[in-house]
């Protein structure tokens, strides 16, 4: 059993998805990097914010 940390698993998952989507959506290298980074930040911080939001209903 690996990756007991859910946060680390989520960050790694987001990294893989961002790389693949950036290569699909953009053609230029610079645009790919910009798209991948912005998507990564959006996914990771979005998940953390949504996690805290759900904590309100515990």
């Amino acid at each position, binding site marked *: 059993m690996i990756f007991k940390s859910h946060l680390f698993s989520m960050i790694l998952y987001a990294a893989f998805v961002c790389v693949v989507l950036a*290569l*699909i959506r953009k053609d230029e290298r610079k645009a790919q990097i910009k798209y991948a980074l912005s998507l990564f930040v959006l996914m990771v911080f979005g998940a953390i914010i949504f996690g805290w939001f759900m904590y309100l209903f515990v």
Partner: protein
Amino acid sequence: METNTKALQSLALGWLIPGLGHVSLKKYWRGGIFFGCITAMLILGLFMGGKIYSYQEEGLHLKLIFKNMTENPLTFLATLSDLGYGFIYILSKLFSFGLGNLKNTTFEFGTTYIAGAGLLNYLVALDAFDIALGKKK
């Protein structure tokens, strides 16, 4: 006509093995990165004890497919996403791996990694299809 055949061929190859559609179109780097990312997600998902879902009914009649969709909609959707990485899905059914280990705390994450890999591979195969048709670079 030849372009359509090439596009369908790259779509099928891309579905069968992640990135192979791009490699067939001489996009070696892109194909290699797709293969690396999607295969890594799949292997990590399997090591986490994730499950590769399969079709629940005996037979592929419309009535049975509809029954499966309505009785287990989430399982049906998970099966569709797992079908995304063609060859490994077939291997998993032949050699019975990816059965899932519910005791693992990482079971849900593993299953998500596996389903995510399948869904991404659909997009990658369709990307190869678009490139072959000349709609994309």
